[in-house]
């Protein structure tokens, strides 16, 4: 009984409370014939089967979030870029937000494809928005591309508000990206404050960062945490909405 309770606690980390209880109930029924070893091997197998997508989705999208942000930064402000953004605070804020939104969209599109599959409409919608933002960031200086992006964005937004299901998916994307950007920006802002407290100025290069190990790993942890909150928000909002829709359909 104790082992069943422990196994149920473990399963509750990867699935809903009632589902975990029913699965353990099933295993308890069969355990009498098959034994304890079979029981624990089955629990391990179920945990892996139910949860492997979660860490993979998080790691892959975190990696993409970092690389896309770096890529956008280089395209807009890099030393070798031919089309550097105009100088001035409003431009810096506008393009900064564009970069964060684009990188969050790219990351969440990949997160969604690993977690839910490419056939899910929310994944497809996230990919379309990520493509529009990426095009707009890389070709911000080209009026023709920007016009096409604006037309595409308007078209996608129009199609999204026609059906209630698409409306909800768009709302999930919009809310998650807005809140996710806010959280990630807050994370970076806190890192900046910490940096000034730690060194009374900005730290440059790996050597300086190496001298402040606590700050280096603390910063990384803060960025991971802010990204994790974004993915958690995406999962919670999306799954709650789709679950309530399915319940309505079943009724």
């Amino acid at each position, binding site marked *: 009984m104790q082992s069943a309770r422990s196994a149920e606690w473990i399963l509750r980390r990867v699935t809903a409370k009632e589902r975990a209880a029913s699965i353990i*109930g099933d*295993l308890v029924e*069969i355990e009498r014939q098959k034994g304890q070893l079979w029981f624990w091997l089955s629990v391990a*197998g179920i945990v*892996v089967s*139910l949860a492997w997508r979660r860490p993979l989705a998080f790691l892959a999208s975190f990696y993409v979030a970092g690389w896309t942000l770096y890529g956008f930064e280089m395209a807009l402000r890099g030393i070798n870029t031919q089309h550097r953004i105009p100088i001035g605070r409003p431009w810096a804020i506008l393009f900064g937000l564009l970069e964060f939104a684009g990188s969050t969209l790219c990351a969440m599109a990949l997160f969604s494809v690993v977690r839910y599959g490419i056939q899910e409409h929310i994944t497809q919608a996230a990919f379309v928005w990520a493509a529009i933002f990426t095009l707009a960031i890389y070709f911000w200086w080209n009026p023709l591309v920007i016009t096409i992006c604006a037309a595409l964005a308007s078209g996608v937004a129009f199609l999204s508000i026609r059906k209630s299901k698409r409306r909800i998916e768009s709302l999930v994307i919009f809310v998650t990206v807005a809140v996710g950007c806010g959280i990630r920006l807050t994370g970076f802002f806190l890192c900046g404050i910490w940096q000034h407290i730690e060194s009374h100025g900005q730290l440059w290069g790996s050597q300086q960062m190496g001298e402040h190990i606590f700050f280096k790993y603390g910063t990384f942890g803060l960025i991971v945490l802010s990204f994790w909150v974004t993915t958690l928000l995406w999962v919670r909002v999306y799954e709650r909405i789709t679950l309530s829709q399915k319940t309505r359909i079943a009724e």
Partner: protein
Amino acid sequence: MKRPATLGEFEQVVLLAILRLNEDAYGVTIRSEIASCTGRDPAPGALYTTLDRMEEKGIVRSWFGETTPQRGGRAKRYFALTKPGLDALISAQQAYQSLLKGLKILGGTHAEC
């Protein structure tokens, strides 16, 4: 008209087992029905993942029964096919039947073309 969802081989096996069990389809019985009919003992991980996935796709629906002392006071989670699930299964089985027509591999039952 919306096309029925495509089903994998194991999904079809699970759906047929649920249909055979009628009102008594839950994890343990589905597993033993598959084992007795096919000789394959499905891994619990594969079975529950498949059931969850099919529920997400709207192919099956599930509900919780009453708690029983044999299961440590845990409820059974029963499964049944939905209308789209049944359509998808019929469509998949019809595809198999069409492919079998003209072949004599099942003792001539499907010999007519």
